């Protein structure tokens, strides 16, 4: 009797999975949600209809491939374009090696980058460009296999990344009048250079400022606080204008490169915000951590480097990455002072007599490029957070 009851067949619940069930659970679970869903669909239809009709029938997308080079490198001279490719190859090699050594996120980025080169090679571009693209893929692949498993190389590759930056600058610039003047750097190339410099330099500078602001020494604390509050009280555009107009007035004859001035402006501006983000993290470290560190005999530098900063930075990763993303987009402000970055290129293309009146296409393309980079940064930060176990309580 009991046995019979136990083995009584219970039918599995029907329709717990699949698209229909998901729709019912999420979009049509009550009558008012069903109505809202339908309304939203109608709105979406009308909004998308206009956009899609425009995108597929009216828009003149010719403007993008025709000006692709301009978007990527601006007025960088054609005959010196090998410099840009050399820079890309250096980065590809490092990327491949790192992908082999660390795997994970770097590997995924390396694959994505290879995908981009592959698609570029398939596009109707010049034969030489195709060669360069395929070469970049080969570079990534070869260095990936070279680096795989050789964990002893790790410190060398980290050093390589740090060294790669000045090397790439020299490769892109060349020497003297035979090289490529920085005023010819443009497009995505310039945007990336400004953003990378801003991010790489402003981060340590921001950490340093945040520590100074927490210092017990009043002079250091005041200097740091004054700096942070002054810079945060001024819009970035003003700082860039000051760099561009006031430096030559105060120091006539001193010829500071325009791109360099913008790098300084962006870096110092971003460092102030970074400092406040980091300070937020520092404040979250309980007093006990410092005391415990002192109790085991660590000095100030050791406490900061091994106890405080790792915990503080960990908790403010989202804020820091948010700042990086904002910085990346803020580089577009240099277009206003005459450098031709990605947005500057977009603006000059819509004023080219051959392509007048195509603002929508050109701006949309620029927006897509900005989005790709910002999303990549966001994705990387989520990956790092997952890796560190943040958010999993």
């Amino acid at each position, binding site marked *: 009797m009991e046995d019979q009851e136990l083995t009584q067949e219970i039918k599995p619940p029907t329709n717990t999975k699949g698209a229909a069930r998901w729709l019912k659970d999420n979009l049509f679970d009550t009558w008012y949600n069903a109505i809202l869903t339908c309304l939203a669909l109608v709105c979406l239809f009308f909004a998308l209809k206009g956009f899609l009709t425009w995108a597929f029938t009216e828009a003149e997308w010719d403007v993008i491939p025709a*000006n692709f080079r301009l978007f990527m490198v601006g*007025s960088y001279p*054609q005959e010196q374009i090998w410099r840009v490719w050399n820079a890309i190859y250096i980065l590809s090699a490092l990327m491949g090696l790192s992908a082999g050594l660390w795997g994970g996120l770097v590997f995924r980025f390396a694959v994505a980058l290879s995908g981009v080169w592959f698609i570029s090679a398939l596009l109707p571009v010049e034969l030489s460009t195709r060669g360069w693209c395929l070469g970049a893929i080969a570079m990534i692949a070869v260095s990936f296999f070279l680096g795989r498993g050789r964990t002893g190389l790790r410190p060398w590759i980290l050093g390589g990344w740090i060294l790669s930056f000045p090397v790439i600058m020299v490769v892109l610039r060349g020497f003297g009048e035979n090289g490529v003047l920085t005023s010819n750097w443009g497009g995505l190339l310039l945007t990336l250079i400004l953003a990378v410099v801003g991010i790489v330099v402003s981060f340590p500078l921001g950490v340093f400022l945040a520590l100074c602001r927490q210092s017990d020494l009043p002079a250091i604390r005041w200097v740091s606080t004054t700096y942070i509050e002054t810079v945060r009280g001024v819009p970035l555009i003003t700082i860039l204008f000051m760099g561009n107009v006031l430096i030559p007035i105060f120091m006539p004859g*001193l010829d500071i490169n325009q791109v360099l001035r913008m790098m300084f402006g962006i870096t110092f501006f971003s460092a102030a915000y970074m400092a406040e983000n980091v300070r937020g993290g520092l404040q979250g470290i309980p007093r006990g951590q410092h005391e415990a560190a002192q109790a085991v005999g660590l000095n100030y530098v050791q406490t900061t480097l091994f106890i405080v900063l790792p915990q503080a930075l960990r908790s403010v990763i989202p804020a820091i990455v948010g700042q990086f993303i904002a910085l990346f987009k803020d580089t577009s402000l240099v277009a206003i002072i005459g450098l031709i970055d990605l947005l500057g290129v977009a603006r*000059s293309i819509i004023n080219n*007599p051959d392509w*007048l009146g195509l603002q929508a296409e050109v701006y949309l393309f620029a927006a897509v490029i900005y989005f790709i980079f910002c999303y990549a940064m966001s994705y990387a930060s989520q990956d790092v957070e997952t890796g560190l176990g943040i958010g999993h309580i």
Partner: protein
Amino acid sequence: MRKYLFQTAALVLAILFVTPLVANSQESILEKIKERGRLICGVNKELPGFGYLSQDGTWKGFDVDYGRAIAAAVLGDPKKVEFRPLKAADRFPALQTGEIDVLIRNTTWTLTRDTDLGADFAPPTFYDGQGFMLRKDLGITSLKELAGATIGVTAGSTTELNLADTTRALGIEVEPVVFEETETLYQSYDQGRCDVVTSDKSQLLSRRQSLKNPDDHIILDVTISKEPLGPVTVHGDNKWNDVVSWVVYATFFAEEHGITQTNVNTFDTENPEIKRFLGASGDIGAKLGLPKDWARQAIAAVGNYGEIFDRNLTPLGLPRGVNKPWTQGGLLYAIPFR
């Protein structure tokens, strides 16, 4: 010893800051350019026909060609020029601070700019004038009828002031709509957000082509201002201003005498003035501080005035108008090369 440390540091700093000031004031820009091996020229980057970045990443336009001509005259190579794109508001500070050697950015010559702004003007290379473009179906043919219309204009230009002057003089009320950027001005006009758009006639003509139906729009047959556009150098450097001015005259002179980009190197003449011009005799180059063949280099680089005009402005549908040699009833008049 330590007592003097601060004073010494201050002195060194002061010397460091003052030295470039002094050095700066003595040397002509011309010498600086020769030393640097490159001319730095401020241009517009978004005015079709006058200055813009072309598809292959090179600079093109009427003003840009003048920059190349000056580079060719001074350094013997039209490629030795660096173009700095400037916004209207930044162009004079850039000139005053020595950021750029010469400003060729469709800049109108006015009394205030010549005096207060510390600029020296070379002869105008393009005589423009402010006009009005509107839809044909409005049926308006004179300025008086514009009363009550919304008129689109770009911010911070002489255009805005001229519009105010003109409507006040006529005693009519109009509603100006001010746009920060040229591009948005014409787009908004095309979408019907303003009835009329006012700007330099050259710009109206070139921009009309980019409208959806160019034939629906007319440009009124009135000109409310004089806009002589030309190269500008910083005030007080006469030697350099002479060079820029004479390169401009050289392009006028070449057109007057039929010297072109193709025939300049083989031009055969017994005319003593042309011989002097081409550097075959005399020393006019040395008087300007330039090589003997400066004018020939400039013409070989970009051609005479007519060629520069035809290359950049004719494709946009701009008529020569008054921008013709004086021998043909225009305003271009080269001073004697003697």
